[in-house]
């Protein structure tokens, strides 16, 4: 069974519209959670991370915000999309005492 789910799989949105992307982790207790952005053919840029419910640290904001409403859920959002928000959004998790981050399947976003 897949540990990490991201939704939606893909989105096409208009510039200026709001966005909400979700990530759910199953079967892991109190994971550290991460959001990344990846331009087409590009590297992975870390955006946010969260160690615990209600606490989010910003690495690079890119006019986005993140929240962790539940232990197993991480949300990425913005009220106004920009063209530059297009790309591949990846959620990742890490168990607190481990080194490795494990990535989800990603959400493809196209802003027109």
């Amino acid at each position, binding site marked *: 069974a897949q540990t990490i789910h991201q939704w939606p799989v893909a989105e096409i949105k208009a510039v200026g519209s709001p966005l909400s992307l979700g990530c759910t982790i199953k079967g892991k207790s109190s994971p550290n959670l991460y959001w990344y952005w990846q331009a087409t053919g590009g590297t*992975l840029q*870390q955006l946010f991370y969260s160690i615990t419910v209600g606490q989010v640290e910003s690495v690079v904001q890119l006019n986005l915000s993140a929240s962790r409403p539940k232990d197993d859920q991480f949300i990425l959002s913005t009220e106004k999309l920009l063209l530059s928000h297009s790309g591949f959004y990846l959620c990742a998790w890490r168990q607190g005492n481990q*080194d490795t981050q494990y990535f989800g399947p990603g959400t493809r976003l196209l802003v027109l």
Partner: protein
Amino acid sequence: QQQVRQSSQSLTVWEGETAILNCSYENSAFDYFPWYQQFPGEGPALLIAIRSVSDKKEDGRFTIFFNKREKNLSLHIKDSQPGDSATYFCAASGNSNNRIFFGDGTQLVVKP
């Protein structure tokens, strides 16, 4: 200043050859170095990782050679297969495992 650099944007080898992907880093405090493999449209998957106390890590056809003094490492893929064609990311992290820095990736093509 880019923290992790990968020397080749792309690499082409023939099936059966050894592919060598190179990576260097800036921060001497980095002590954990994972390599991720990413296929188009998918999230990156951990391939193999090494800690800075080791100079070599082997897992099947994949080997990391690590040089702490020179601050570089390489991923060797023995007996390359067409199915190994993917983008490979070198990454590094230090004491704060919540911050991980990725290289720009090397796109490997294995020709049959």
